[in-house]
């Protein structure tokens, strides 16, 4: 059994399941964003509030251009928010933070570096290339069957493998929260389904907290514990679905066959359709 996690600040403890206390590792309070551009203002987010608990996988889904990427950029501090409050790991976060790993749609592996050198890029940039961290990176490569390719170059790997390397590059910095922005949408359908499963396994094994943006309703249901549906631009939270299957050891492929899956699918689909 996982031991009880005792939080310094008891007020932040929020959920209690089977002896495990889950704390809110990410909390957004009325986040708003207005972009200033030459041809006027663009209101991208309006009073977005939700939270993500330790170890959860949460999906964000919404019409295209509604402000999903903006939301993730604000959480990492790549973009400044216009209003609202952001708490990461119990502390208010202003500006850039090292607690977050952010994985984009494109793998953006550097073709002049070997796979291993690509994986430790984040460690180099953050100046945390310690032997322990390098060992952790190697261990991740080993665990997910990429170690034998460590001295190869990105062009020698398939799309699915490259995406896994990109994930390991992000995990190597040991982020408290992992943000995925349509991380699988550049892959073809077949690869995508199998990579989704691989990555789900990695995420659960490494017990990372994940907030992911996706266009794909099935993906959001099969991978996450909760699905947050956003409205069109400016995005606000429209509805939050708790995804619960009665299956032990949730498997994103098996889950798709469950009757509950299609009922979730239908309600989320309707929720999105109204916006369109």
């Amino acid at each position, binding site marked *: 059994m996982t031991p009880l996690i005792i939080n310094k600040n008891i007020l932040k403890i929020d959920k209690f399941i089977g002896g495990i206390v889950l704390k809110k590792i990410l909390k957004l309070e009325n986040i708003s964003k207005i972009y200033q551009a030459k041809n006027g203002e663009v209101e991208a987010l309006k009073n977005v509030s939700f939270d993500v608990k330790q170890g959860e996988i949460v999906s964000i889904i919404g019409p295209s251009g509604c402000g999903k990427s903006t939301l993730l950029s604000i959480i990492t501090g790549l973009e400044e928010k216009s209003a609202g409050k952001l708490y990461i790991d119990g502390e208010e976060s202003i500006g850039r933070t090292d607690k977050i790993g952010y994985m984009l749609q494109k793998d*953006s592996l550097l073709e*002049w570096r070997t796979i291993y050198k690509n994986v430790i*890029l984040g460690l*180099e*940039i953050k100046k945390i290339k310690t032997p322990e961290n390098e060992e952790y990176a190697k261990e991740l490569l080993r665990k997910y069957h990429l170690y034998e390719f460590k001295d190869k170059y990105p062009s*020698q790997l398939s799309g699915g493998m490259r995406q896994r390397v990109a994930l390991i590059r992000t995990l190597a910095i040991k982020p408290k929260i992992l943000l995925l922005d349509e991380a699988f949408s550049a892959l073809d359908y077949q690869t995508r389904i199998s990579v989704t499963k691989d990555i789900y396994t990695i995420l659960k094994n490494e017990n990372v907290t994940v907030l992911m943006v996706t266009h794909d309703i099935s993906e959001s249901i099969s991978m996450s514990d909760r699905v947050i549906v956003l409205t069109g631009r400016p995005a606000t939270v429209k509805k939050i679905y708790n995804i619960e299957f009665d299956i032990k050891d949730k498997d994103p492929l098996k889950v798709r066959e469950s009757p509950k899956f299609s009922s979730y699918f239908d309600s989320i689909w309707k929720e999105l359709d109204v916006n369109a």
Partner: protein
Amino acid sequence: MHKEKISEDRKKYLRKILIKKFSVIATQICILILFILLWEILANKEIIDSFITSKPSEILETFINLSSNDLWLHLRVTCMETIIGFSVGILLGSFIAIMLWWSDFLSKVAEPFLVVLNSLPKVALGPIIIVWVGAGTKAIIVMAVAISLVVTVMEILNGFIETDKEKIKMAQTFNCSKLQLLTKIVIPANISTFINSLKINIGLSLVGVITGEFLVSKAGLGYLIVYGGQVFKLDLVMTGVIILALVSTVLYGSVLLLEKLILKSHKFGN
């Protein structure tokens, strides 16, 4: 059986390619020999005036005589000036390009100046350069730099600006500094841009040096050519031009060699 058949076809295919390649080279050599022969014969039969056109045998003679005289000196002077001008152009150009990439403000300010300087025929700066740095080797090197610098800056800056935005964004997700962005992403992503500007630059530097030598020098291939023209020794002019062609080929070849070395140390997959 099957395998053998394929290799038979493959052999045929390879032979075909080889023959094609060989016939191209053979034709090229034939044309060259024919041209030289024709030139020599026409000059000998006085169909063309060898005073104006010179002739191959005379050029060869001059060539041999020059080697015992100052050919090496002229060659050395021109090569030295070109290599110095080339190196200064590349280093200074890269430095300026990095500064302009670093500061958006600076590059906005510099843009119209760069455009004007780029279209200005740099030869026109000759007299100014001579007045400023004196009529000597320095002026020739400055001329070479003047001709190659703006092109280098623009080429490298363009490459930097066009660096894959996704890669930059990826690096930023790790909170990288501007210096890290430069050294870990932008420069390595632009190795081929650098190599390209090396290739352009070596030619331009040579143009600058010869132009400079036309204007001021007392030695060098440019001087040799101008001097030959002034005293109506066309064989000297022709010899100078031919040596210059060889020099530029060798210099370009060295850049290609450098490219191979750079690419080897900066290995790409496959």
